[in-house]
């Protein structure tokens, strides 16, 4: 069963779609693709030696076992729902949808058809993060009271001027993109609590600048042709049980790149750093997990312990989990469509709070 070769259909053959395709190939499975752009289809066919279609429905009619959706976010809803209705399990790139209404429609369709719908918050598959979660689960930190999440790049606006930076097509800017990752991690650590209050500010300071200087860019550089989204945001969340989180996200900021989570519990704290070396633009990796506690004994003392584990490729781990679920029909323990819907609602709360305060 384990070595059953699946054929996975990729809808949307841009940067994300190509990454998924590479990983799926490495895992020994077959591919097919769909995109309305003929250039994207040609490049995909050439690189992966796989058939492509202009319309996703034709891909779904072909002999595929599962589907990965990596289209512009505003197209997630129609494509995913068509896939569910064709009887296919779906891995959707994050965020789930461009707005809550569309996210709800996807979740409803997944439930109605009974298909597996996983959403690509791949950082949840980082070994370090899974380890951190296990410490939380066994109450190592006592009661977790606060999480401080930071996901900041110095200059890392993705696809500046393409659909990535269009409010209509992506649903928003960095809050939708990096922010949804940070919210997903925070909500998972707190076991999906209800959000009571949000204070937030969003800013758009860099994307439109003609002198935007950068060292690399994810996706294509559209020279800010389309750019009507925020490129940084700071938010404070209060949950119904009184616990709190702060979220600091930026595609561009005059600061050192960081993707970190600081946890404060009644018994211990932790600091996790999963900063992408490509963002940090530095030698070596930053893959750290530190435990901070205070103990007594003969003398009171601080204990700072370094937890080390093997660094993994979270994209690959995510894809493995998805394809395993497709094979067995058993749902993965993380990244469900309902978790992603909770993230979508949290994103919306941040936008609403920023709107309310006039700080958007």
């Amino acid at each position, binding site marked *: 069963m384990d070595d059953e070769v699946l054929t996975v259909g990729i809808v949307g053959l841009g940067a994300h779609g190509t990454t998924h395709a590479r990983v799926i190939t490495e895992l020994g499975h077959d591919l097919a693709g769909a995109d*309305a752009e003929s*250039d994207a289809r040609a490049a995909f066919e050439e690189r992966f030696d796989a058939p492509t279609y202009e*319309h996703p*429905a034709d891909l779904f009619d072909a002999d595929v076992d599962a589907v990965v959706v990596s289209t512009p976010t505003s197209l997630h*809803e*129609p*494509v995913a729902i068509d896939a569910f209705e064709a009887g296919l399990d779906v891995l959707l790139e994050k965020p789930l949808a461009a707005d809550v209404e569309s996210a709800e429609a996807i979740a409803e369709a997944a439930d109605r058809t009974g298909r597996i719908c996983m959403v690509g918050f791949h950082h949840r598959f980082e070994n370090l993060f899974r380890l951190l979660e296990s410490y939380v689960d066994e109450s190592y930190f006592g009661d977790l009271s606060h999480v401080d999440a930071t996901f900041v790049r110095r200059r890392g606006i993705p696809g500046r001027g393409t*659909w990535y930076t269009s409010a209509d097509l992506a649903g928003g800017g960095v809050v939708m993109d990096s922010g949804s990752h940070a919210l997903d991690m925070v909500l998972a650590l707190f076991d999906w609590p209800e959000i009571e209050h949000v204070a937030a500010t969003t800013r758009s300071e860099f994307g*439109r600048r003609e002198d935007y200087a950068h060292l690399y860019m994810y996706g294509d550089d559209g020279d800010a042709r*389309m750019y009507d989204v925020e490129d940084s945001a700071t938010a404070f969340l209060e949950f119904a049980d009184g616990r709190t989180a702060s979220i600091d996200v930026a595609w561009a900021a005059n600061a050192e790149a960081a993707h970190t989570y600081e946890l404060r519990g009644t018994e211990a704290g932790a600091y996790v750093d999963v900063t992408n070396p490509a963002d940090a633009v530095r030698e070596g990796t930053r893959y750290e997990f530190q435990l901070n506690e205070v103990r007594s004994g003969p003398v009171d003392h601080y204990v700072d312990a370094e937890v080390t584990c093997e660094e993994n490729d979270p994209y690959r781990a995510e894809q493995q989990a998805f394809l395993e679920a497709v094979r067995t029909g058993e749902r993965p323990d993380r990244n469900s469509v309902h978790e992603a819907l909770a993230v979508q609602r949290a994103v919306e709360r941040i936008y609403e709070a920023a709107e309310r305060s006039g700080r958007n």
Partner: protein
Amino acid sequence: MWSSRRSSIPLAIWTLCHSEVISARSPAGFIRANDHIVQTNVAPGNDRSTGKTIQAVETTLRVLEELRHRESATLAELDEALPQSKSTLHHHLATLRQAGFVDSEDGTYRLGLGLLTLGGRARETSDLYDAAREPLDRLAAETGELARLVGWHDETVVTLYQATGDAVDRPWHTLGAPNSLHSTAAGKAILANLPDEQRAARLTDDALETHTDATVTDPDALRQELATVRGRGVAFDDEEHHEGVRGVAAPVTDGDGSVLGAVELAGSVERLSEEQFRTELPDQVENVVGVVEVSTTYADWSGER
């Protein structure tokens, strides 16, 4: 095939439904051909200008075009303008009346509203129109000005849709009207992105009509401006088509870079400050164009096939 939404009713019909003076074009561009629709009157491998046509139909089209040009005409006036005999013209007019394509009152003929049935349908088959309507409504609401979608297909250029904001009482362009390419922002955005030979054909002295004192009619000056438009991706019209009106436009292209049309935002010179006109509006127009392009590319991905 999933492209079944495309029909053979072309946008030129839309032009006919509304009136504004343009020079008659021939052949009329009233039927659109594509890979999936085989036409008996178009020889394979030929474009429409060299295909065989039916003379009686051409006469009918000439009558319609003449009525559009004049707004209304008597049989005697049509007889004077067209080579056909009075009785032939009368038969054509009677047939057109029966179809609701021509109205007559006291011996004066004008275009019938029945044409709008065809025009409306023609417009509905345009993915561009579908994709642009909502973003244009929002653009007009946000700016208070006039947001316009101009479509380009088979040498036909037509105002496909326009949305008016609060500041605009009456749009200064007629819906469906063919658009002057060299004097409006939308026209320049299209012109700048046409293949070289198509553009050159439209940059001759006699093709460049003067609309206002500011209209650029010198082919060299225009050629230079269009190169800038291509570089920047945005075209401007500063009272070059209508006195007191300035516009900003960006071209809508498909994945291969072929131009499909343009989105334009135009408003009164008194309302639009230089900063708004040169910086803010171009940003807003480009945002809308980007959305329209992606939505057009993936038009068949959402909704029914």
